């Protein structure tokens, strides 16, 4: 008990351990598993990432004005939901062109609010995919 | 005729009057009689303020001797036919000693009747509170399965009891005191046995033999007093008492302990619970047990030094232990009973201290305890009759069914513990007077601790009971109000009114300043209501938090298990203390 007692007392005059986030930002390690990023121009539309992703956070959905890329024969567009992703990196490991077409950055994912429709919006996409 | 004789004699006639007659007549008569008695006691205190002394004629004395012999013979007879050895033995012993007392009766005389302030206050308590209980008993007894005569007899007995009590606080003659003491024993014996079943009989006999010990103690005191001081009168005994020889006082004090059901003589009062509730109410509040502090008050001027300290210690110790023991009880009346025992012991302790302040505290406590206890016992009766409840644990959320009864119970408990009620003032003054004494004798510090602990235990006890009453359902739909007969509630309102008058008296007598009484009262009652009316409109009603579950949980009373051997230890300590008291007085 006395150790705690004195520890509490000395702590009183020490600088606290607290990092004043978000005033002071915390530097993320470059190896941190953050957002999955996509290089549209390098993608070969092999859809390996889509298949590998456990929760299905990557969807290639047919759209009317597909991105211009000769490999994109079906007219697909890449969609990624950071609120569904579990940041396991499996897609990157599956991708034949990692670091170019698909890579994991150390960026923090964005906070969503109601208007972002992170869930409902994705349902729409999933419906498109099924059709 | 002076008021005291009205108070003593009139109830006898009232008793005869209510015996005959049907329900209506009896009820009306009773109410009138009670009003008469209450009026008389008020007149006595406001009109006849001086001390009054008279002697009774010789023929009265012979009548009393006759009555006494009859009572003792009756006890003996009861002991023999009920085959109760204690009762028989004590009755025989009493007869022998009584014969000796009558035989040696000294020639010196003093006034037989002596009415002082204390008596006047006792009149008030006995007649007003006691009368209220009789009114209540009218309704109560009708719901019992007795014959008409037995029902009327019940009321009559209660009146008779009042008469005896009025007499006992008027007398100065210890012989007459003994007779009346035995008469109260007789009354309680009959009332406790009133239901006539086995437990009633057994408990009545228990009450009988224990009270006989009290009678014996008085007789011993009488004999010692005759041989040593050559008197049978309180005033002479007290004025001539020798500091070194307090034996008569000690034995009278023991008689008080017995009547006050102090531990170790507590069994009889708890046994008395089997009687119809008005009996408990009247025993606990206005009559019977109040003889104990009254007697102590009478003896107070004669006590000093060792006797005073020891009695204070015994009193406070009993106060503490009875409160402690009550914590483990579940039977509502038993809880009330133990708290009576505790408070009586406190009164006796205060009387034994004997300073002016302590005596005032004692009187205040006597008065307010009567009112509060009567109020509570009436509620106990209502619970039994209207809700079929005896055990606190069964009273689930009574507030949903009868807010009024709960209100009375809360007020009853509050008036025994909290400012600005009288019992609180008494406790307050008790602490102050004991604090004053510590410098005289360090043992009072122990008494102080007993009081401090005891009063907290009592509070704990009362609020523990409230646990069960108060849990109010969220939804109003579930509330089912139970109808309670008017005759049950009116007496409670009267007692409530008395409590409020009490607060005024406390203010008037300056026990507490007006700042202390009224400012908190007003603030505490008005401000929250203001807020409430302002805020409730906007508030939403929600269910209680059950960790997100919707299932209701079961709530029950907390009880505090007191290990069995505590009770034994406490009794042993009390007995040892009493022996120390006797031995100390003899040496």
């Amino acid at each position, binding site marked *: 008990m006395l150790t705690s007692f004195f520890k509490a007392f000395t702590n009183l005059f020490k600088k606290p351990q607290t990092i004043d986030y978000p005033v002071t930002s915390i530097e993320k390690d470059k190896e941190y598993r953050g957002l999955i990023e996509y290089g549209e121009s390098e993608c070969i539309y092999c859809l390996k990432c889509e298949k590998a992703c456990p929760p299905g956070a990557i969807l290639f959905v047919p759209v009317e004005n597909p991105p211009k890329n000769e490999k994109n024969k079906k007219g697909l567009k890449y969609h990624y939901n950071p609120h*569904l992703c579990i940041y396991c990196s499996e897609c990157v490991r599956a991708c034949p062109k990692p670091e170019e077409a698909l890579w994991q950055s150390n960026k923090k994912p964005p906070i969503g609010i109601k208007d972002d429709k992170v869930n409902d919006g994705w349902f729409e996409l999933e419906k498109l995919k099924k059709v | 005729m002076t008021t005291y004789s009205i108070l003593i004699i009139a109830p006898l006639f009232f008793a005869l009057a209510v015996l005959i007659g049907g329900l209506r007549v009896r009820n009306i008569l009773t109410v009138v009689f009670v009003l008469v008695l209450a009026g008389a006691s008020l007149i006595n205190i406001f009109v006849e303020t001086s001390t009054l002394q008279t002697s009774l004629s010789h023929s009265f004395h012979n009548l009393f001797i006759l009555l006494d012999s009859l009572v003792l013979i009756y006890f003996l007879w009861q002991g023999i036919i009920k085959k109760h050895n204690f009762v028989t033995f004590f009755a025989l012993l009493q007869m022998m000693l009584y014969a000796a007392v009558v035989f040696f009766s000294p020639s010196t005389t003093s006034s037989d009747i002596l009415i002082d302030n204390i008596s006047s206050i006792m009149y008030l308590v006995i007649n007003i509170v006691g009368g209220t209980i009789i009114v209540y008993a009218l309704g109560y007894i009708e719901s019992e399965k007795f014959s008409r005569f037995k029902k009327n007899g019940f009321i009559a007995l209660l009146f008779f009891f009042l008469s005896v009590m009025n007499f006992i606080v008027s007398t100065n003659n210890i012989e007459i005191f003994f007779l009346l003491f035995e008469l109260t024993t007789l009354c309680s014996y009959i009332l406790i046995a009133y239901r006539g079943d086995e437990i009633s009989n057994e408990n009545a006999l228990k009450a009988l033999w224990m009270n006989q010990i009290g009678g014996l103690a008085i007789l011993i005191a009488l004999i010692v007093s005759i041989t040593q001081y050559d008197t049978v009168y309180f005033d002479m005994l007290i004025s001539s008492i020798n500091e070194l020889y307090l034996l008569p006082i000690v034995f009278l004090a023991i008689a008080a302990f017995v009547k006050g059901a102090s531990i170790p003589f507590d069994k009889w009062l708890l046994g008395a619970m089997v009687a119809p509730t008005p009996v408990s109410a009247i025993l606990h509040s206005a009559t019977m047990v109040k003889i104990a502090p009254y007697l102590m008050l009478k003896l107070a001027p004669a006590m000093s030094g060792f006797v005073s300290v020891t009695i204070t210690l015994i009193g406070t110790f009993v106060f503490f232990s009875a409160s402690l023991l009550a914590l483990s009880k579940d039977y509502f009346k038993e809880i009330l009973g133990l708290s009576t025992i505790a408070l009586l012991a406190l009164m006796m302790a205060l009387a034994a201290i004997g300073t002016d302040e302590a005596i005032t505290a004692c009187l205040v406590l006597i008065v307010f305890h009567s009112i509060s206890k009567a109020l509570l016992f009436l509620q106990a009766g209502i619970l039994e009759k209207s809700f079929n409840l005896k055990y606190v644990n069964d009273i689930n959320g009574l507030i949903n069914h009868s807010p009024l009864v709960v209100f009375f119970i809360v007020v009853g408990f509050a008036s025994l513990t909290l400012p600005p009620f009288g019992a609180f003032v008494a406790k307050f003054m008790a602490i102050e007077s004991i604090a004053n004494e510590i410098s005289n004798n360090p043992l009072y510090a122990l008494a102080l601790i007993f009081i401090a602990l005891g009063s907290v235990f009592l509070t704990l006890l009362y609020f523990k009971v409230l646990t069960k009453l108060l849990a109010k359902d969220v939804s109003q739909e579930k509330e089912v109000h139970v109808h309670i007969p008017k005759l049950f509630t009116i007496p409670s309102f009267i007692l409530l009114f008395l409590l409020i008058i009490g607060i005024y008296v406390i203010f008037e007598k300056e026990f507490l300043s007006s700042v202390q009484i009224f400012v908190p009262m007003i603030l505490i009652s008005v401000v929250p209501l203001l807020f409430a009316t302002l805020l409730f409109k906007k508030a939403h009603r929600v269910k209680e938090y059950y960790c997100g579950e919707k299932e209701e949980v079961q709530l029950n009373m907390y009880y505090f298990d007191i290990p069995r051997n505590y009770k034994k230890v406490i009794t042993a300590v009390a007995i040892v203390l009493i022996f120390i008291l006797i031995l100390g007085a003899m040496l």
Partner: protein
Amino acid sequence: MFDFKPIRKKSPWILHYNAGSCNGCDIEILACLSPKYDIERFGVINTGNPKQSDVFLVTGPVTFRSRERLIELYTQMPEPKVVMAVGSCTCTGGVFRDMYNVEDGLDRYIPVDVYVPGCASSPELIIDGLVKALEILESKTKEIEKPFKLFRNETNKDGVVNRRNSALKVGEEIDDEEN
């Protein structure tokens, strides 16, 4: 009248409910209380009592058995309040999306104000989310926000909303008439 709104964000008391998460996000919420992150800086107290909370932190994809508890807690929170879905599985179902005993995220049941992604959401993310949530809290009104499912609007005679029976058995129709 004195404007209380700026004060709201200085004293967010939180209620945490685990609606079927893997504990990953829950321990990160606990880590937020630890000295390194110390969200008491923002005045956060973890009250554990819905009636005294402003921010509802939910983790997990809402399993069948949690549903009624979730709604019960939600309705026991006084307005204004914000709901934070912490973790990917709470936002959208995450890895549990489409499993048979869960139903794709918290916002199927109650209105969610802030979605904090991550699996597990790191304390920094949770703090970011909290900051965002407090901004939203400031602009909220005291209107009652209804849960989407398991909810029947109960109005007393005097127009006071009765929250007692707001969570109903599954399958009971939602009364849409008032909307």
